[in-house]
Each structure stands twice: as structure tokens, then as C-alpha cells.
């Protein structure tokens, strides 16, 4: 008995480690790139550990004027990424929250009341079927007339709307899997429908909400095309800022890698925090 669990434990660990390694290898490559000086960015044979590791790629992101070394020579007159960081930190959480809230309300309405008819969920899904590229210029013209180009509000509205289909469909899926009789029971006991929605259904689908929120957050955080087209100076977000690390001879892989790592940290933190909702806690009993 002990032997079996010992072996299966080892296998389990082996699998976990193997998965982690596979997942992390490109990440490690990016990480290593972020510590390499320019002459090693494309060097051959490629090395995992930089021969002359440097913190410059990270420094130039926030203090481009710093007088240390080769990379800062290249990006000396760039602007620091703090503004892009702040913009992303404003725009993305707000639009994610709005998307999830509106999505939750609508998902409940559709799931429990068939509101909007049978075709509403599908027609919302069609907003994701249209290639965004063909949509960009018409949307640009429209935004121009509204004065929303290069504004935070403009991007927030856009991101919220475009991710509504995700929120709706993902949350609806989770609501659908909550049996109705639980809610019916609470109603028979005298609770109002709104109360039921918020105090019974909502907690039951915490995991789904968290997953949807994380996904929407990631989609917004890494969105590039519309951020590029709709911002120029004031509302520039992180992905657009990454693309600006280019120069006289091609892209600056070092700072781009560094910014990529730095930009992924808030998301990593968010992802870690929602983990607790993903693992179902069975403390909430189902009222019989």
C-alpha cells in the first residue's frame, strides 16, 4: 500500500514538473532575453544564461535617461513606461469589471427569463465573429464624431463592449448549470428575486465569475490593435508601448522582453488571487 502511493506520488510530481517545464521554457527564454545586453540578443550559439547579464533593459523602461551602458544609448530619449502602465491600470480593470457586471446581469436575465428572445445570446456572440480589422476605420470615424479618440473613456467603452460576448456566454454557462430548484426554494421561502440572484446564485458561480473575469482581464490587458489605432499620446496602453521599443536597427528585443515580463506581473497577481475561487469550497451547503 505504501509502495503504491509512493510511486504514484512520484509519477504525479513528475507530471507536474514536466508540465511546468514545458510551459515555462519560452517564458524563461523571454526572461533570459530581458537580462541580455544587445550583442547577445541574436547571438549564436544561443545561451540560456546571459554571458554578461545586465539590468539595463529594465532600467531603461522607467529611467530612459540613465547613463548606464549600451541600451540606454539606444533609448535615451524615449519616454518612461509609467504612463502606459497607469493607463492600462485604469482602463483594463474598469472595463473588465463593467463587462463582468453587465454580463452577469444579462446572463441571469437570459438564463432564467429567456429575456430578449431565443436569438439574443447568439446575436451577441456575432460581435466576436467579425474581424476587428475591418471594423477599425468605421469605428474610428464614429469615435471621431463623439470625440472619444485617444481618451480613456473611449477605450473603456470599447473594451467593455467587445468582451461582453465572453462575459455573457461564460457566465451564462455557469448559471445554467445551477439547478433552478435551489432558487425556487428560496423564493418560496419569501426571498425576492433580486435577493436570490445576488445571495444564492452569485456565490454558487464564484468560480465561473472568477474565470471569466480573469479571461476578460487578460484579453483587455493584452489587446493591441484597437489600442494602437485609437490612441496616440494620452491613452497609450502597455502593449502599444511595447511595440515602440524599436529603433535604428530593428526592434530592441531586450527592453521588449523586459516590458513583457513587467507587464505580465499585474495579471499574474490577479490570476493567483482568483485561484481560491476556482477550487470549490464545499462549505456552502445546498439548502434542501
Amino acid at each position, binding site marked *: 500500500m505504501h509502495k503504491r502511493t509512493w510511486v504514484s*506520488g512520484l509519477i504525479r*510530481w513528475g507530471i*507536474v514538473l514536466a*508540465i*511546468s517545464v514545458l*510551459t*515555462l521554457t*519560452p*517564458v524563461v*527564454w523571454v526572461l533570459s*532575453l530581458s537580462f541580455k545586453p544587445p550583442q547577445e540578443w541574436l547571438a549564436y550559439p544561443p545561451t540560456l544564461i546571459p554571458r554578461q547579464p545586465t539590468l539595463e533593459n529594465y532600467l531603461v523602461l522607467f529611467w530612459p535617461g540613465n547613463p548606464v551602458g549600451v541600451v540606454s544609448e539606444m533609448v535615451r530619449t524615449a519616454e518612461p513606461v509609467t504612463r502606459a502602465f497607469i493607463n492600462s491600470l485604469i482602463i483594463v480593470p474598469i472595463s473588465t469589471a463593467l463587462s463582468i457586471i*453587465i454580463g452577469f*446581469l*444579462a446572463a441571469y*436575465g437570459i438564463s432564467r*427569463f*429567456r*429575456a*430578449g428572445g431565443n436569438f439574443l445570446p*447568439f446575436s451577441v*456572440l*456575432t460581435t*466576436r*465573429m*467579425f*474581424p476587428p480589422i*475591418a471594423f477599425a*476605420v*468605421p469605428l474610428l*470615424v464614429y469615435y471621431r464624431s463623439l470625440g472619444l479618440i485617444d481618451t480613456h473613456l473611449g477605450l473603456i467603452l470599447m473594451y467593455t*463592449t467587445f468582451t*461582453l460576448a465572453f462575459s*455573457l*456566454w*461564460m457566465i451564462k*454557462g*455557469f448559471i*445554467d*448549470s445551477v*439547478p433552478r430548484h435551489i432558487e425556487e426554494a428560496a423564493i418560496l421561502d419569501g426571498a425576492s428575486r*433580486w435577493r436570490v440572484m445576488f445571495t444564492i446564485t452569485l456565490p454558487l458561480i464564484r*468560480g465561473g465569475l472568477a*474565470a471569466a473575469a*480573469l*479571461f476578460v482581464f*487578460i484579453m483587455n*490587458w*493584452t489587446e*493591441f*490593435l484597437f489600442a494602437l489605432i485609437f490612441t496616440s499620446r494620452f491613452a497609450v496602453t*502597455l502593449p502599444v508601448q*511595447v511595440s515602440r521599443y524599436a529603433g535604428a536597427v530593428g526592434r530592441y528585443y531586450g527592453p*521588449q*522582453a523586459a516590458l513583457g515580463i513587467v*507587464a505580465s506581473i499585474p495579471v*499574474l497577481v490577479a*490570476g493567483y488571487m482568483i485561484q481560491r475561487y476556482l*477550487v*470549490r469550497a464545499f462549505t456552502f451547503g*445546498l439548502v434542501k
Partner: protein
Amino acid sequence: MHLSTRWGRWWEEDRWMGQLLILPMQLLIWFVLIIPMLIVIYLSLVSWQPIMGVDWWQAPFAGLRNYAQALQDQRFLSALGRTIGLVLAAVGLEFLLGLALALFFHYQEFPAKRIFSSIILYPMMLPWVVVGLCFYLLFLDKGPVNYVLIQLFGPGASVQWYQNPLLALMTIVLADIWQWTPFMFLVIYSGLGALPPEPVEAAMTLGASRWQIFRHIVLPMLKPVILIALIIRSLEAFKIFDLVYIMTGGGPGTSTESLSLYLYRTGFVYGQLSYAAAMALLVLILVALVARLMVRPLEMELESR
């Protein structure tokens, strides 16, 4: 129904409450999307480029000419077929991998689960610019992948990944799988976590085997979640642009050009906004038809509950 009077709690009447709940969504979609959509449809019916020197609302009418041209455009049709292939390959593999990972995490016990699942989720969190660059660099002729191959198999093992269209497509699919398997994992894992435990417990007390429980109880309950994940991911994969742009630029020639990349070239490099609009609308119709087919089993599933 029971306790509401004519004047009180009117907002709980099914009819009203449902409408109220979907109202914010309707408003937002109408406000933001409808007008540009109308403009797109208009553009597809005229013949307009900014460099023609006329304003877009003065452009000459072209009827269905753009659509006819698109349907005969070899480059459009190949891009379409190629993109469908990419989606099938990428999403299929992502699903299988994500399912396996989610089951593993759900049913196996090991410490620091949160940390490991964060690790698995990480690829999704990098900005796509960086992911594309990373994989582009990895598969360069003198990049790490070839280096490892040479170390393992000798100097002849170096592969020119980007010169052969099939290999180039494979690298793109690989990058996509790496980046988006976490999504499948995320959705299925949270789906597993949200399942009520009673049916499983009941079946276990009845002596059902693990496999039977999985196949006849867990899997059917997961079906809506799986279908949603597949639909969402497929829709997104269909629009794949960034990875192709950074890694191959659609080359050599147009042999790895995805649909979105061709639309981008047509609209933003050649400036043919009308033609791009028509092609995009064709894509919309096609995808909507296919998606309708995919969504139907989901709806029937819900009806049967």
C-alpha cells in the same frame, strides 16, 4: 405570481426583470457597435479608398461587386481555407491538452496547486507582441530550437522553419497552443469546480468506477462549459493575426497568410477599405452559419434540463 401586487415589486415580474437585466448590455452594444456596423455595410457596397481623394460618403456605388470579387479572389479563398485548418489543429489540441490538465489538477492531490496552476496560466498573460517575438526568435535558423536539435542529432538536424510553409504553420500553431491551452484549462477546471458533488457521491456509493463516473456523470455535466470554451476559443483563433504577423508576415509569399492578415494588408497597406469590408462581412456570414451549428447542441442540452 404570488406575492407581488399591481404596484409593488413590479420589477420582479418576470417580464420586467428580464428586460431590466439585459438592458445595460443592449444599450452598450447599440451605442458602440451599431453605427460602425452600418458604416461597414455601406463601405462594402461602394468602391472607396482614402487615396481616391473623395470623402467616404461621396464614394461611387458599387453594388455587390466587392463581394463577387472576393468570392473569386484566390488569395482570399486560400487564406480562408488555411485559417480553418489552423483553427482545427490549434483548438483541437488546446482542448485535449486543457482537458487533460484540468482533470489532472482537479482529481490529483499535490501541494502548492495554486502556484502550479498560476504557472500554467502564465502564457496567457504575456502581451501577444512578446509571445510572437519569443517564438519567432526561438525558431530562427540560428535560434535555440535549431541549436538544441543540432546538439541532439548533429549538424544536419537544423531546420529552416520559416522557409517551408507547412513547418512555418506548425510553429504558428505551436505558439498558439502554448499561449491558449491555459484558457481551456481555466474554463474546464473552473467548470469541474462548480459541479455539484451529489451525483458523484451518489454514484460512488453505488459502486461505480472512476471511468464510469467520468464518462456518464461528469462529462455530460461539463458539456455546456466545454462547448462554450470551444466556441469562444474557435472564434478567437479564427481571427489569428498577431502571431502570423510577427513570425512569418504571411510568407514565404502568401503561403502562411491568415484571413485576418490578408484583411489587414488589404485594408491598411493597400488602403482598399471597401474591399476589406466586403470580405469581412462574408467572413461574418460564414462564421455565423458555422457557429449556429455549433451552438445548437448547446441549446438542445439546455432545453432538456
